[in-house]
């Protein structure tokens, strides 16, 4: 508060010398501005010239050793609880390092086979019965847990234990247990109607037989997810070491991979669960420390080179600061950061730095979604017109330019369709910059354009409720979107929210959000089902997630949520049909669904197939991209021998 007014508030002000006060306010303002400037990243540009004598991208043998130092902006989403974590960052750490599953991936790109399932705990891919209802897995022997269960071997019963925990709605809250409803008896067990899962049988310790309620071509992928990683037994407790840890098993996680949390040997499971102390190597919100699992036998693996001795991850900090540290060589990389544009520019244009820049498709799509129950978006011509009018290249520029992704002409990422639609872009425009004329021609066919001049003149086109993300660069993108759509007669009332709030508003039919400007969607596992069902299946509408367009919504649901529109096109049948296929026919099924969606349903304007872009320090001489999680294969980061 102004010092003079404060004094005056006490009584009739008799201030000290007015000139002194004036200078005080000048100084105060200067100080404030200075603080603002200093607080807002006055760091020096990180030195890009740390050209040591070490060879970058060195050929020759990669040597194990050294500890990788990483920064991480945000913590994992559920404290490493494998039945709850629905976050690709955590999944990347499970796959590479902490947990093995019946099947897994090799931590390489799609082209190198990174999306093909490989046996991990299983000794081979499962045998499938001819009716597609029974899958039989045979387990390897000699796979030991991490400390403090180093002398315990993984058995098929341990996998069942993980699935029983997955069926418990409390233990798997926030996770993806809906995928496993296809296992016979899974839902019943979760509701307490049975005391075991009927569709899971363990004739012996190295055999697991899974019986389904209906054929599901994606089932093997489900056994490559961390929720099915084995949980060691403890006494005769049904949930083994996880007993009593419904909320916080992640802090007592027993590893099965090449690494474990530091201090795992001090975990004491002999005392009651509430008295146990969590593992030292994970301090929520602060740090993660992984060390080698001394009981891990590489001969039983083949998917994980596991070069580093360990990982030190510091949680928190500012994105710009962390990348400055990477440039200065104080950090090896940032787990979940976004490379700031000037850093990207530096690494892209400097030939000595380019080897440290890694760009790979992350199998995620960015899009604008329509609520097809709110006018004018109930009219397919309007939706098509908006597909034609968007400057997708401009949207990409705001994210950092060409490196950050490929312009998306359709909905599902190409890898999930085996590239069948790689050149398919039904609303292509010159340079992907949007084509106003074509858009107006489409709009002219709409009922909301009564005079057919290509500009909407109905009141429904004014002040349309739009929701976007408040973080960069979404507000800038919102400005471009409005600029692109205004010549079509559409104006928007744009509200920005924090990301999770934004998603919930887009997902809530009763919020009557007409258009969602900032969503993105990545695959859960390398199959088109993880795009089709959660995004366009009618069962994925609130209270489930994430069908924001209300595709396939029933008249009942629509009227309960207060809509006048009584029906929205559905693709449920097509999803089901595609899901029952396997092999090439399955890819074709997803491609056909994509085509139907783009040409007939038009629930979205997809604009970008995302890339993962990252930079690493000079001493990292090997890098591999794990296509499954869309992040680095951390165990394949090899440190230059002289820097270990």
């Amino acid at each position, binding site marked *: *508060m*102004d010092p*003079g*007014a*404060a004094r*005056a*508030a006490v*009584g*009739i*002000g*008799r*201030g000290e010398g*007015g*000139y*002194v*006060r*004036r200078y005080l*306010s*000048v100084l105060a*303002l*200067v100080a404030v*501005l200075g603080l*603002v*400037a200093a607080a*807002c*990243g*006055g*760091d020096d*540009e990180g030195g890009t010239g740390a050209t040591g004598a070490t060879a970058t991208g060195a050929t020759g043998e990669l040597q194990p050793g050294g500890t990788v130092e990483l920064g991480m902006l945000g913590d994992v989403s559920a404290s490493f609880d494998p039945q709850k974590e629905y976050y690709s960052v955590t999944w990347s750490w499970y796959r590479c390092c902490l947990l093995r599953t019946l099947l897994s991936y090799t931590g390489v790109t799609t082209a190198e086979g990174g999306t093909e399932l490989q046996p991990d705990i299983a000794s081979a891919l499962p045998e499938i019965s001819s009716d597609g209802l029974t899958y039989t897995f045979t387990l390897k022997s000699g796979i030991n847990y991490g400390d403090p269960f180093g002398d315990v071997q993984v058995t098929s019963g341990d996998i069942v234990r993980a699935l029983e925990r997955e069926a418990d709605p409390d233990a798997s809250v926030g996770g993806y247990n809906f995928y496993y409803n296809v296992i016979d008896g899974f839902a019943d067990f979760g509701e307490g109607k049975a005391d075991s899962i009927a569709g899971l049988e363990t004739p012996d310790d190295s055999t697991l037989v899974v019986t389904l309620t209906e054929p599901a071509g994606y089932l093997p992928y489900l056994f490559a997810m961390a929720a099915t990683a084995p949980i060691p037994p403890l006494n005769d407790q049904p949930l083994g070491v996880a007993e009593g840890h419904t909320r916080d098993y992640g802090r007592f996680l027993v590893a099965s991979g090449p690494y474990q949390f530091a201090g795992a040997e001090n975990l004491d499971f002999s005392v009651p669960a509430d008295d146990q102390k969590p593992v030292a190597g994970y301090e929520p919100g602060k740090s993660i420390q992984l060390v080698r699992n001394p009981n891990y036998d590489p001969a039983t693996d083949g998917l994980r080179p596991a070069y580093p001795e360990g990982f030190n991850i510091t949680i928190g900090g500012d*994105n*710009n600061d962390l990348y400055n540290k990477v440039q200065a060589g104080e950090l090896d990389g940032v787990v979940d950061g976004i490379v700031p*544009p*000037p850093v*990207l*520019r530096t690494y*892209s244009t400097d030939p000595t730095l380019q080897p440290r820049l890694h760009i790979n498709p992350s199998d995620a799509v960015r899009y604008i979604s329509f609520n097809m129950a709110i006018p004018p978006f109930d009219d397919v011509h309007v939706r098509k017109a908006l597909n034609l009018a968007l*400057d997708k290249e*401009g949207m990409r*520029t*705001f*994210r*950092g*330019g060409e*490196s950050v992704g490929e312009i998306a002409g359709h909905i599902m990422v190409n890898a999930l369709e085996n590239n069948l639609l790689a050149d398919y872009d039904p609303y292509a425009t010159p340079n992907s910059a949007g084509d106003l004329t074509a858009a107006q021609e489409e709009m002219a066919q709409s009922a909301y354009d009564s005079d057919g001049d290509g500009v909407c003149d109905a009141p429904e086109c004014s002040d349309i*409720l739009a929701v976007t993300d*408040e973080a*960069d*660069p979404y*507000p*800038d993108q919102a*400005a*471009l979107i*409005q*600029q692109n759509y205004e010549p079509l007669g559409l104006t928007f*009332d*744009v*509200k*920005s*929210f924090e990301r999770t709030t934004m998603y919930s508003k887009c997902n809530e039919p009763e*919020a009557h959000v007409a258009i969602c400007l900032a969503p993105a969607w990545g695959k859960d596992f390398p199959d088109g089902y993880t795009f089709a069902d959660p995004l366009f299946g009618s069962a994925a509408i609130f209270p489930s997630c994430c069908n924001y367009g209300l595709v396939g919504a029933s008249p009942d649901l629509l009227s309960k949520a207060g809509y006048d529109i009584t029906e929205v096109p559905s693709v449920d049948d097509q999803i089901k049909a595609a899901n029952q296929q396997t092999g090439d026919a399955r890819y074709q099924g997803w491609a056909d669904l994509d085509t139907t969606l783009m040409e007939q349903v038009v629930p979205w304007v997809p604009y970008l197939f995302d890339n993962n872009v990252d930079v690493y320090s000079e001493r990292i001489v090997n890098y591999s991209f794990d296509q499954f999680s869309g992040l680095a294969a951390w165990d394949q980061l090899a440190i230059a021998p002289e820097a270990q």
Partner: protein
Amino acid sequence: MARAHVEDAPSDSGPDAPIDPEATSVEVSQQVVGRSPWELFWRRFRRDKFAIGGAFIVILIFAIALLAPVIAGFTHGPNEVHLDRLDSFGIPTGPQSGFPFGVDTAGRDLMVRVAYGARTSLFIAFFATGLASLIGVTLGMLAGFYRGKVDTLISRTIDVVLSLPVLLLSLGLVSACGLSPNGCLGGIIKPGLLLVSYVIALFTWPYLARIVRGQVLSLREKEFIESARSLGSTNRRIMFREVLPNVAAPIIVYTTLIIPNNILFEAALSFLGIGVPQETPSWGRQLADAGPVFTYAWWMMLFPGLFLFFTTLAFNLVGDGLRDALDPRTGG
């Protein structure tokens, strides 16, 4: 116009009066020119260079705010995205021909947005402050004049409002009412510039109320009030015709001094993301947007920052000058 009182007699009219040394004593007294209080005020104010300077800047900012659409008409609209002014990595370019202040991360003309930001700041300055003034003066007068229970009630209300955690409450109010598409209380409190103004007014009226109350408490004991009452004036008449004119000067001064605080308050709220809506240009939000890109887009912080600084400074200087000129006993 206020009746002249002994205490408020202009003190410098005597020495300044030109004296004709050859005039008789009678003529001398006739040549002493009495100046009205406003003339005296203006002379004192005029002599204060800082205050005049501040006033010029205020007028200039006003002009910029008024002319913002004209400026936009000659250059670019405030929301026009110019992708060609971003490089291929999306990095904005700085001051250049056609864009004297450069562009922001969305490729919009920063000069035009800064000009529109002046509108936001001045609207807040006058509307929010005016509202605070209205409430504060009214309640302060009532409290000081009636005393007793009325005073107790109002004074305790002042205490409570002054104790409220300002930022936390603003956050809560703007979040609750600002983010839901329909606002609060069935749409009465809608998100936007008005909501922010109400919030700012809510937290600043107590300062004025206290000042006015203090003034009124001392004034009501004066003889002219007694004589007005003995002549049969009602309370309301006394308040409006006797008391109010005599507190006008402090009201003007402290209202002017609260303006820069309110401008900074709105800037702070917008900086924190709970101020005016995204599309409304605001210097505070422009500063917030400039933070993460400061190292490679310094112009985004420099220009809004300078404008905010000089506007706030100017109002402070004018307010100080007003106070010194209206009541020289409190000046330096």
